[in-house]
């Protein structure tokens, strides 16, 4: 009784694989409820359309030196019968492997670049060569390119088959320029960097201006150049309110007029007073070698932060200054 109940439960579950042993104990009541495919179509066998046997996949007929760009000339979904690679994709269940490529939805979902193999790209380049002009022979190194053409403008054109040739993404214009190629002095450079903010990359010294606020590419290009001009001229001007720049606004540590300088001066003056040496003046004190070294170590400590190097340098300079050696 228990076996019959178990088998009935098993057959009622849609996804389970019933074991053959239990098939024989299926009760007649359940069998008639499930429609079997044999009873759906009532035409005689010779009138029904013949179902073709599945042919072997195309991969078996592919040679090793075939022309792959003709198999995938354009971007096409992944066809397992046309790709001769034994690819597996999927999450393996316990004691299992990822699923094979036949009927694998995961492989269909992801974008594939089977139409852009190096051979295919070479062919594209060869075809495009007819439309290209020669690279100028004088510009044979990166430095020369930068020297003569410091501003680089990037634009993108989009081609697609569709009802309209316009693409709104095509209006974006990116302008890149290295600040070292612009004629800026110290104050102008700092002001420019503060004005542009995020658009400046410190490691590569490149200012990037990306514009897309106008509807046409030409307009955006003009606007980007206008922005560059304005930034350049504004950074050279000094406004009145720039006098109020405080220590917190400074980009890097400046030794002159800093509290560190005052401290060290006081200390040295006291030391000299203790030695009854009252005739030294401030400039002389500050010009000694030890003070120079100390100044360098403090500047590096503040600008670079704490690390072993800077701290040991600072320690040595302080010891020399305070005669602790």
């Amino acid at each position, binding site marked *: 009784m228990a076996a019959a109940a178990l088998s009935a439960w098993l057959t009622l579950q849609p996804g389970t694989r019933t074991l053959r042993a239990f098939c024989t104990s299926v009760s007649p009541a359940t069998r008639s409820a499930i429609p079997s495919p044999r009873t759906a179509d009532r035409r005689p066998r010779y009138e029904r359309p013949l179902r073709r046997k599945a042919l072997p996949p195309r991969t078996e007929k592919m040679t090793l030196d075939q022309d792959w760009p003709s198999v995938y000339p354009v971007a096409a979904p992944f066809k397992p019968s046309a790709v001769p690679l034994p690819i597996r994709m999927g999450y393996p269940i316990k004691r299992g492997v990822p699923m094979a490529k036949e009927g694998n939805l995961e492989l269909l979902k992801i974008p594939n670049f089977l139409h852009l193999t190096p051979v295919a790209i070479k062919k594209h380049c060869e075809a495009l060569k007819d439309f290209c002009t020669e690279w100028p022979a004088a510009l044979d190194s990166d430095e020369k390119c930068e020297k003569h053409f410091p501003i680089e403008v990037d634009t993108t054109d989009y081609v697609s088959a569709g009802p309209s040739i316009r693409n709104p993404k095509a209006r974006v214009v990116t302008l890149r320029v290295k600040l070292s190629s612009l004629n800026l002095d110290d104050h102008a450079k700092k002001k420019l960097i503060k004005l542009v903010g995020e658009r400046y990359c410190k490691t590569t010294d490149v200012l990037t201006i990306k514009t897309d606020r106008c509807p046409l590419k030409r307009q955006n290009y003009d606007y980007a150049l206008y922005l560059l001009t304005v930034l350049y001229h504004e950074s050279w001007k000094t406004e009145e309110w720039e006098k109020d720049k405080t220590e917190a606004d400074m980009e890097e540590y400046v030794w002159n007029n800093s509290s*560190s300088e005052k401290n060290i001066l006081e200390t040295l003056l006291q*030391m000299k007073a*203790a030695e009854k040496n009252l005739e030294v003046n401030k400039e002389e004190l500050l010009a000694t070698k030890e003070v120079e070294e*100390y100044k360098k170590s403090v500047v590096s400590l503040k600008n670079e932060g704490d690390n072993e190097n800077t701290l040991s340098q600072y320690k040595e300079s302080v010891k020399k200054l305070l005669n*602790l050696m």
Partner: protein
Amino acid sequence: MLKRVTRLVPRACQLDPGHFLHGGPQAPQSLAARLDDQVPDENPRAGSHPSEDDPAGAGEQREGRHYRIPLQDLPTVFPHGLPRRFSLQVRTFNEACLMVRRPALELLRHLDDTNFAHPAVRYVLYGEKGTGKTLSLCHVVHFCAKRDWLIVHVPDAHLWVKSSRGLLRSAYSRRRFDQPVEAANWLKSFKTANERFLSQIKIQETYMWNKRESTEKGRPLGEVVEQGLTRVKNATDAVGIVLKELKSQSCSGAFRLLVAVDGVNALWGRTTLKREDKSLMAPEELALVHSLRKMVRNDWHGGAVVLALSQTGSLFTPRMACLPQELLGKEGFDALDPFVPILVSNYSPEEFESCIQYYLENSWLQHEKAHTEEGKKELLFLSDANPGQLERLCAYL
């Protein structure tokens, strides 16, 4: 272990008090087998454990060795100074042994060569957590105490900026706040540590506490301290006066002043104390912090300032911060500049070996594998030669 304890107790009773005063090798601490080790002070035992009490010493060859602080010195020199785990260890082993390490030796050498006419030099001990900054500070404090310096020791400045219950508006300055409890505690410890100086130093100004009480010029400093202890409301002002007087009088050369502050980054950090309108206070609004900041400036001479940074106990600092600029911040660095930073690092292999030997000799490590080579390697790996971590690990063995 129990058997050994019962045997140690009768031995302690048999020794006469004279033995303790000399600070000679104290037999109760060694195992029963070493009872005939009556070596004199200057003869260091091989290994980790010389029974020397002089904190300075012969220099580099003493590095890695332990030196013992006589137990009767502890309440006078460190009334509140020792870190908690170390004082537990002292109680357990019945002796206070500190390892002589390179940063402390360097500091002691500098202190020995100090030019007392020059402004006070500031030394800052920094390092990762558990490397021994506080104990190095204590070593230096003991050294100076032995040399008869006046010690101003603040064991943990962080305690002054957190969770203080009795905050009062200062009578002296409307903008600042008093902390009577902390000030009174500190005054008590200061009194115990520097008893003999309190009667020698005379104050140079008259201080009016209120309409009826005042301390005249020329009275000993002890009276100011007493006033602070009896009238707890004036304790903070008393602390301020004591520090001011010490600073001005150390220039005269009557005594040498050592200012030792642990957790000095608290003075320039943030507090968790709130004003009446529940807004957070800045440290400068606390009178104690204000006076201590004035103390660690280098506008006085006749002594030295030894400071230790500490991340444990500090507020609003990331756990991995251990470098001076990270913990002191811009303000603190500018205030302490120029200072001599001294790095305290983990144990070197010899120091590690010495520490393990010390624990083994005191039968602190009971595990059977503790004295084998693999056991030591395992301890080295687990603790990464970090003294604090090693101590905690060995507590379980």
